[in-house]
């Protein structure tokens, strides 16, 4: 842009300097606390490598942090225990855990999500700490935003979306399995436990979050200028995604909490701390 000489702008404010009188720090602090707590818990849970499934009383619950279990020691593992070739390349200082094979996908989806980007730029990097609040002095004119490396990588979001959509299907399958209980005679029968409902709510909330994704909204119809040229199905899908998109932040937080709680529930049942109540 061929802009003439620099504008004579007011002096930049220092970190946290503002004339705002409201509790502007509250929202970024709450975001920081929520995301930080989730990162700590999910990292801890992912590295455990045990108590991630519950099989007592005929139930078949699998923690969403470990689904799909590609290699592992539970009955849910697709290909059985980790093979020798995998263990040979596995870093020796990291204990093997099936969660570490898959968590990068939903983690990447949330990390590159447009909502979370705005939220953690504020809460973790103070960029800005809140609207109309001064930023850290070291950044000033060095700011590059998402215009260059490393944050230009955020443009990969739609590829994580494709993976996240697959995860919805996998977690729905886990929820379906949560409603089947093995009787004493070895037959699978329909049943409902508290864990079944916990596992079912998880993909519903994740679906609300994933199907309200800005990238999905674009891919499903937003990229067209003339939506009326598109099929009725596409127009309907665009309206549906747009509707969910308006509640994207709400679903982002609800699904984040619930996926963590679902792992916690399965872990508590697996360790025997909680008893899974059978409703039906």
């Amino acid at each position: 842009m061929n802009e003439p000489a620099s504008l004579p702008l007011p002096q930049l404010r220092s970190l946290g300097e503002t004339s705002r009188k409201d509790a502007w720090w509250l929202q970024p602090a709450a975001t920081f606390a929520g995301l930080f707590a989730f990162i700590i818990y999910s990292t801890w849970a992912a590295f455990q490598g045990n108590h991630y499934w519950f099989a007592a009383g005929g139930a078949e619950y699998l923690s969403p942090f470990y689904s799909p279990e590609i290699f592992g020691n539970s009955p849910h593992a697709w290909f059985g225990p980790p093979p020798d070739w995998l263990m040979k390349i596995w870093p020796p200082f990291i204990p093997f855990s099936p969660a570490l094979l898959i968590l990068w996908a939903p983690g990447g989806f949330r990390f590159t999500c447009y909502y979370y980007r705005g939220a953690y730029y504020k809460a973790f990097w103070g960029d800005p700490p809140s609207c109309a609040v001064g930023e850290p002095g070291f950044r000033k004119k060095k700011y590059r935003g998402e215009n260059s490396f490393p944050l230009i990588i955020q443009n990969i979001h739609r590829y994580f979306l494709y993976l996240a959509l697959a995860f919805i299907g996998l977690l729905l399958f886990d929820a379906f399995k949560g409603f089947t209980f093995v009787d004493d005679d070895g037959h699978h029968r329909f049943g409902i436990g508290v864990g079944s409902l916990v596992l079912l709510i998880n993909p519903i909330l994740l679906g609300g979050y994933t199907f309200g994704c800005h990238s999905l909204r674009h891919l499903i119809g937003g990229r067209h200028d003339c939506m009326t040229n598109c099929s009725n199905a596409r127009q309907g899908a665009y309206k549906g995604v747009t509707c969910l998109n308006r509640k994207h932040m709400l679903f982002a937080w609800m699904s984040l909490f619930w996926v963590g709680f679902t792992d916690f529930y399965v872990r508590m049942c697996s360790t025997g701390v909680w008893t899974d109540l059978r409703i039906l």
Partner: protein
Amino acid sequence: MPPTTFRIWRGDAKNADFREYTTEVSEGMVVLDAVHQIQAESAPDLACRWNCKAGKCGSCSAEINGKPRLMCMTRMNQLPPGETVTIEPMRSFPLVRDLVTDVSWNFEVKKRIKKFKPRKPDAEDGTWRMQQADVDRVQEFRKCIECFLCQDVCHVLRDHHKHNEFIGPRFLVYAAALEMHPLDTEDRLADLKNEHGIGYCNITKCCTKVCPEHITITDNAIIPLKERVVDEFYDPLTRLFRIFKPKKPAESTPA
């Protein structure tokens, strides 16, 4: 209501500071009324830009208690009672005097955005046909009153002074209104990426929060434009699929 104290920014770009004024505030008053009352009572030289007093001209933009707002649309009873009210000029533009800033940079930016370029007329009389459903999306953007509060709160301009590299949320909305228009055939994506700096936006949604017309700037304008830029420059699969798809003018042909 009791008398209220106002801290108002007085001075020019070289020498300015807050000055306090106290005035009676009555029911139904907005901040602009109070400023006019202060002008009448004790500060006749207080500079303040205003016009319609109805939230439609976008002239009286300022920062009230640190938040970018229209003075004419901020009712006194929305502010904490009994507390001093701070009124400052916008911080993303050069100060002229007191509460008046020079927003002419915005008009220069607007000139650099490629203009509306409609497809050939659909009818012999030189008119076009389009569906209301197709223009609904861009009509939201046309509500903009150019108050430039979104430009003021945008930290890329306000805190990083990237005026030479970033056009700001107002003009991303303007570009979106043109780019998503069902009749438009112009391609602005390369400009948005290279000249207009859309990548600088890090989606803090501050622009959306301050918009007096409640335009969903980030979700409906900026992010869809960012996604179009991804289509054009960053997504190898979309680029591959585009080889088999018709160009924009063909897509815009009415059904």
